[in-house]
């Protein structure tokens, strides 16, 4: 536990630095302005990973991370406004770009398997993604309209 905690912290420092750089280049937020925000986000991630280790339930660690972030920022929670203020400085897209850069490097190994898939699989795959995505959006739309929210 302690060993992987140290590993996690070191990795998060690297990832955080990369995100701060992207946030600076792409979205003009100076790194020291976004530093508290990224530190908070990393703290929440670590807390979620640790809670995931300690609790016996079969929930994915990202569920804990999301719930901790949500609870900390419910209006009225002490410090909620500060957390929101600081984390707003970290642009969502600046977080997404390094994720997909790592993903790109990681999927290289699957490329040869990918090119061996037939055209039918590729076409069906696109319809699987389209069906999943559009299906959710349509149901959400119908209910939101029914409720008069949008």
């Amino acid at each position: 536990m302690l060993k992987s905690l140290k590993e996690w912290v070191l990795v998060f420092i690297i990832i955080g630095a990369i995100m701060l750089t992207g946030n600076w280049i792409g979205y003009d937020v100076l790194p020291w302005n976004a530093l508290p925000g990224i530190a908070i986000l990393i703290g929440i991630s670590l807390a979620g990973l640790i809670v995931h280790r300690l609790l016996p339930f079969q929930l994915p660690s990202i569920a804990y991370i999301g719930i901790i972030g949500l609870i900390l920022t419910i209006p009225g929670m002490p410090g909620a406004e500060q957390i929101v203020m600081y984390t707003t400085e970290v642009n969502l897209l600046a977080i997404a770009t390094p994720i997909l850069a790592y993903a790109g490097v990681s999927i290289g190994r699957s490329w040869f398997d990918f090119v061996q898939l037939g055209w039918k699989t590729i076409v069906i795959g696109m319809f699987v993604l389209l069906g999943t995505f559009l299906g959710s959006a349509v149901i959400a739309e119908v209910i939101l309209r029914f409720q008069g929210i949008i």
Partner: protein
Amino acid sequence: MGEQALKLWKDWRLHVIVLAIVAVTESIGTFAIPLGPGTILLLPMLYAVVIGLALYFTPLVNDKQSINAEPLVFLSVSVLIAKFGVQAGPALPQIIEAGPALLLQEFGNLGTIFLALPLAVFLGLKRESIGMTHSIGREANLALITDKYGLSSPEGRGVMAMYIFGTVFGSIFIGLISGFLATVTPLHPISFAMATGVGSGSMAAASLGPLVAAFPEMSETLTAFSGVSNLISSVTGLYMSIFVGLPLTVKMYEILSKNKEKKEKAAKGGVNYVKKS
């Protein structure tokens, strides 16, 4: 994760490459390509996945980097999920109000069964189509199908093919269509934000990115709804597959393939008849 994730932080080559990719792609910035009434948004993250993939075929990236990159995707996704969380807290009243939509849109993930399964059967696939189209085919679904049918069964081959497809092409494809669909269809961006919880972290990032870029004035609300949708999917997704998605796919497959057989037989019968006369 954990004990086997040894010395990830020491893979400097990988981190420097990712830093360079980020610096280059963020400098290039976003391009919007008008396509009919909609827009396709090309975002830095989209170039990032393509460049990362291309670098695998250069001496810069070895298998070691590629293997190490996988847990790093997971850890960087966790920062994204934390960001989702802190956006969701302030929006909690809105989220509760939209609760029914958020919960029920999970059933929309079954849309693949109605769209992709008939296509797969039409294209002549047999039981592979069950593995392929019962869900978006990420890790949890791979485990489910393997557990139930075995990986070397037709169903297992199907889910494996979809897993590979999604791994390589998923975030690119969904990143391209998400912004386009949101600008071309009459559906509200919030509905699409709820749809981004499809069960994969990098696909969530890839599908939310264009929405936020296309509707910057709503970015906080969109992120909050996307976050909660991802949270719900991460908890309910597998059970949805076990209890609804997979049984429904099997049932639909049986009906579709029977119909197809009937039609084929009828067609064959017709040809024979013509020949005889």
